[in-house]
């Protein structure tokens, strides 16, 4: 089941078309990576989903319905540019934001208590935001994003500004929220966190969607049928179907070779030929990294 669908979204700003016919499907319970270079249109799309702006064409379907004001409390949004009222106290501020999302004061209070215990920030309740460090403010903002238990959580660069320990804490929270049934849309430039967390991705470049689907399928699509082998000995006269792309020495007299096979060839044949010729230490497929895919896909559409 899909929690969110965007259908043929177009957004035009004066002379600049920020989004052009963007259709996406976000499955429920997924961690969905929304990728793209700077200025590709990610933020425009996120703002449309948050009803901050409206699309010029197309429609957004959330939880099976056309996007409407009742959806506000089902979405939690952490913008890339963080901000809180500096002169307000932490507790007061979070209560206010929760109530804007439609929670009653009592509900908000109960939910906040849980988060304050969880993040061990009970002593912060009466502190002013301006007295907190940047990392502490980020934590407060994260709580503000998720405290109303939204079905859809949109995080724009959630890890920027966090030290590794807190980043890990947030990462665990994201996974826990997913396990509890929330769906997370995750917009970032950091491919290692996409690699780690996302199960679905979409790539937007120059206002167009260039790629989307389950991460595994995309990797499958981008794989080059290349394998690597670490071995000792001399690797020569392989059948011509197998192309040795490169060979380089590694440690202790071992060498590493990257070998490409035809799409229809069996990997076992390659292994058999290798065993006959060299002493194999390790063997594996070169699966493209998200980084490779990003660069390749963006590069292809820019040409």
């Amino acid at each position, binding site marked *: 089941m899909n929690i969110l669908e965007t259908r043929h979204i177009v957004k035009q700003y004066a002379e600049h078309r920020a989004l052009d016919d963007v259709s996406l499907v976000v499955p429920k319970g997924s961690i969905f990576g929304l990728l793209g270079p700077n200025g590709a249109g990610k933020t425009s799309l996120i703002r449309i989903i948050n009803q901050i702006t409206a699309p010029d064409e197309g429609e957004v379907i959330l939880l099976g319905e056309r996007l409407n004001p009742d959806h506000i409390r089902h979405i939690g*949004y952490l913008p890339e540019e963080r901000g809180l*009222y500096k002169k307000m106290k932490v507790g007061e501020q979070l209560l206010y*934001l929760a109530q804007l999302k439609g929670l009653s004061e009592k509900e908000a209070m109960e939910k906040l208590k849980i988060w304050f215990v969880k993040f061990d920030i009970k002593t912060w309740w009466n502190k002013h935001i301006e007295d907190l460090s940047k990392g502490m403010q980020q934590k407060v903002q994260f709580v*503000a994003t998720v405290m109303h238990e939204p079905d859809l959580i949109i995080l724009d660069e959630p890890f920027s500004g966090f030290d590794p320990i807190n980043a890990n804490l947030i990462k665990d929270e994201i996974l826990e929220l997913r396990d509890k049934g929330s769906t997370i849309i995750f917009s970032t430039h950091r491919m290692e966190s996409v690699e780690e967390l996302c199960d679905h991705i979409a790539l937007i470049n120059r206002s167009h969607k260039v790629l989307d689907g389950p991460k595994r399928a995309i990797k499958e699509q981008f794989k080059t049928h290349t394998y690597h082998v670490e071995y000792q000995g001399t690797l020569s006269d392989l059948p011509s179907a197998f192309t040795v792309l490169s060979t380089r020495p590694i440690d202790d007299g071992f060498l590493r070779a990257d070998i490409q096979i035809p799409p229809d060839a069996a990997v076992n044949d390659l292994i058999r030929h290798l065993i006959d010729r060299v002493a194999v230490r390790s063997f594996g497929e070169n699966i493209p990294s998200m980084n490779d895919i990003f660069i390749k896909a963006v590069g292809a559409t820019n040409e």
Partner: protein
Amino acid sequence: MNTIFLIIKREYLVRVRKRSFVIMTILGPLLIFAFYAVIGWAAISSINQKKVAVIDESGRFANQFKDTKETTYSYLKQPLAQAKKQFAKSGYDALVFIPTDVIEQPKTVQIFAEKSVSIELQNNIERAISKEIETIKLNQAGITRKIIEDAKVNVDAQTFSLRETGEQNSSAIATSIIGYVCAFLIYISVFIYGTQVMRGVMEEKTNRIVEVIISSVKPFQLMMGKIIGVALVGLTQFMLWILLTVGLFTIGGQVFGDKVERGRAAMQTSAAAGQGAAVAPDPEVRQAQQGVMNNVVRAIETLNIPLIVACFLFYFLGGYLLYSALFGAIGAAVDNETETQQFMFPITIPIIGAIAVAQFVIREPDGALAFWTSMIPFTSPVIMMVRVPFGVPGWELALSMFLLAIGFAGTTWLAARIYRVGILMYGKKVTYKELSKWVFYKA
């Protein structure tokens, strides 16, 4: 609707709890009170009794000097030289010497004192002597003082305004003052609270919290919530000022008794009469001022106070709404305080102009200038308040209010369109051309 209420509540509480708000609210009336108290004290200290010794060699002035609250007179029978010697120990504040030939040579009167003599005392003595000499000379000429008194006519013109309701006593001075004070309060509060709205919007924009907020509420709700919240802060401040001022003067009045009242009355009348002096030394002048004061009180009684208060509230709110929307739009359009200047300038011209024009309107509250400037929504909050105490035809008032309502609906619409684009636009130097484009963006 619930969310806009939440926003209003936050905007209101955040400002009302601020230390600066509390200080201003308490300090305002205290300053006014202190101002009056100082003048009150001055009035009280000036009526310390002075003892004056009189050596009357002519023998014509026995009992001509009347003791007053300020001064007591006693007559000495000793020669001047002796009195002068003993003066330091005698306890008198001043010594008056009237020579025998005073009637022929009035300039020979001398006043001695340890320190210099106050002008007030000198005036009193001079007046008593000259009056007596006058009487003597008149008597010699066969004219009694009574004839003179009868011949003196005190012209004190009272102004009347003619209306269907009949003749009403009015004092142009009181009416002008009330009108101008109301207009000035509106002018000041538009600036103070309009700037607060602008700062608030800018704070949200530069803090980047705005994106979080408008993912929960509509930009229009956020803007209106802020404008209404600040309006309530303004009303609260006015109410507290009025209550505290009245309270302070009630308490102060009881503590200082009628002395302060006298000082205050003197001060008010002198101010009303357009004189700088706080203390009225001359009994006649004081009497005249008392007359003005009575006129003022009478005039105030005949003014339609409920109408003025109602108009004040309407024009305060209307003017504030009209301008604060524009101030809010500026806050949304710019990235920092320095950029606000170029946009503030054209917006503030009409209201500054209005307060300048107000001085001409006071002189001619029914002229063409007054009429047109009290119809234009950008100037009407100030100008109409100047005119209202003088009496304005019902249809003019209704039309002006209607136009003001349209005016602030218009500026709010315009501001909202600039606002919703501006708050999400960072790091862009905004021009008027850019702003006009924003107005026509689709949401």
